[in-house]
């Protein structure tokens, strides 16, 4: 128990220090600042996905759907003059309002069927967003005022808020994992029938997990919209927003607290390397990376290192 509290405190302290310090340290390095912001957003999504995909064991491909939903909710509200803080909160609420009923329905499915249904959710939202052009601008996209004013302040601001959100999401993950809810999710992941047999209300707990994970994903979308300043449906509902967090968590270690952090950092670094060194095959390079990762390190970096230490 104690080591857990220590870990949580360490994450919070380091996170707070990073939120306060990094924007200042990186002030002269806008590119690094951008990379760290990207890392933070990926971390939010990875840690969010980990709640459903890692703790509960449901292979969700819906992260991108909620990311896009949050991006649009925040962007539309900001365009209507709402304060960015409120806009982010409403984006989170929008995520929850969609996730709760959808999750309740979709989470009755298992395995491939769940994966397909969750994948379809993003496609449907994208089409609806594109179609409802009076509200969303449709295929024309939407310009977001953002919160920071001039570009430099916007960059620093976006870094700070995405880092803060990342720290909160990791802590949320830890809180869930070490709570009654997390214990129940563990049971569900390992054996849902047996879990029901000992009184675990699987449907309820799964829906909680799915909803919480969607809230943070949606807020991440809102932060992203303000940061980039322009969103369109193909961009924010891109299936990559669902796949990259999964790859990051697979890279770091599924179902662990630190896995998403390590995974997101490695992923951003690897992606950057591939992107710099391979010009027109960079998406393909990402594919090669995924294939290699799953063949060589199927359990992720963190568990591989830990199990190495344990072995004689």
């Amino acid at each position: 128990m104690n080591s857990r509290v220590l870990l949580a405190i360490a994450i919070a302290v380091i996170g707070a220090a990073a939120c306060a310090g990094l924007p200042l340290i990186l002030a002269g390095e806008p590119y690094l600042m951008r990379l760290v912001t990207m890392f933070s957003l990926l971390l939010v999504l990875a840690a969010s996905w980990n709640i459903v995909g890692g703790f509960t064991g449901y292979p969700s491909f819906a992260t991108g759907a909620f990311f896009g939903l949050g991006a649009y909710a925040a962007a539309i509200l900001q365009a209507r003059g709402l304060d960015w803080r409120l806009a982010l909160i409403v984006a989170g609420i929008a995520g929850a309002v969609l996730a709760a009923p959808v999750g309740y329905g979709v989470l009755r499915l298992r395995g491939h069927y769940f994966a397909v249904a969750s994948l379809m959710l993003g496609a449907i939202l994208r089409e609806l967003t594109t179609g409802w052009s009076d509200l969303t601008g449709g295929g024309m996209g939407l310009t977001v005022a953002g919160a920071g004013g001039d570009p430099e302040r916007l960059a620093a601001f976006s870094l700070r808020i995405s880092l803060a959100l990342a720290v909160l999401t990791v802590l949320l993950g830890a809180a869930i994992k070490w709570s009654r809810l997390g214990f129940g999710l563990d049971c569900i992941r390992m054996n849902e029938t047996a879990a029901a047999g000992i009184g675990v209300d699987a449907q309820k707990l799964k829906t909680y997990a799915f909803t919480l994970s969607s809230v943070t994903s949606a807020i991440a979308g809102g932060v992203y919209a303000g940061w980039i300043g322009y969103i369109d449906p193909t961009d924010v509902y891109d299936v990559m927003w669902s796949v990259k967090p999964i790859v990051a968590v697979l890279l770091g270690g599924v179902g662990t607290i630190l896995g998403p952090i390590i995974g997101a950092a490695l992923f951003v670094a690897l992606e950057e390397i591939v992107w710099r060194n391979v010009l027109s095959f960079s998406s393909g390079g990402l594919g090669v990376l995924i294939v290699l990762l799953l063949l060589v390190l199927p359990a992720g970096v963190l568990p591989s290192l830990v199990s190495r230490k344990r072995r004689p």
Partner: protein
Amino acid sequence: MNTALLDVRNVSRQFGGLKATDDVSFKLNEGEIVGLIGSNGAGKTTLVNLVTGHLKPSRGEIMFCGQDITGHKPHVLARRGLMRTFQIVQPFNDLTALDNVAAAAMFTGHTRSFSGAREQADVALSNLGIGHCRDHLPVRMTLAERKRLELARAWVARPKLLFLDEVNAGLNSGEIEGVLGMIRKIAAEGVAIVIIEHLMKVVKGLCPRLIVLHRGQLLASGPTDEIARNPSVIEAYLGARGAAAMLGEQP
């Protein structure tokens, strides 16, 4: 006004055209030990699934403690004291034995704290004679130990009624003796128990009453001695050849 603990009324369940359970009715009283027997495919496990909420009946109703529980979810029933074990053991593979049992203590509503749940689990493990497996993962335990783990998980929930689905399957006779001892111990605490078996031999010494299923239907129900001599039961249940063997075995 004497309400039965469990009252199954005309329950049926169909899969496609197949009637897995066909108009079955029976009652159980508090603290009773009953054997539910029948050959493979007689519909024993389906019946357990129907009563414990893992399947919904196509027809009929089920009363538990005087209340209608037809179609209630398994987790709701578990919290109300209706527990079961599975024919094939279903442990949580990444949890230690202790946490396997602690989860049951927690989610059946007997405690909300982790420390409380683990304390209760500890007692349960010792009580069922597998205290030494406390920190083991299920994969490191023998089948007999895992069977006891399932019993511990059920016991810690302090059930009123416990279904044991082929709890002896795969065990040798020594191990079976041990498990039967545990079952007696649990029964002595006033828990009603339904033992699902296809070997009549096993349940004979333990259950004063038997319920016999055949092709989804209730074939007979009554005191064990009577049932054991009931020719239609013997024939349906064991086939003509087995019937002869069975009768020859009578003391």
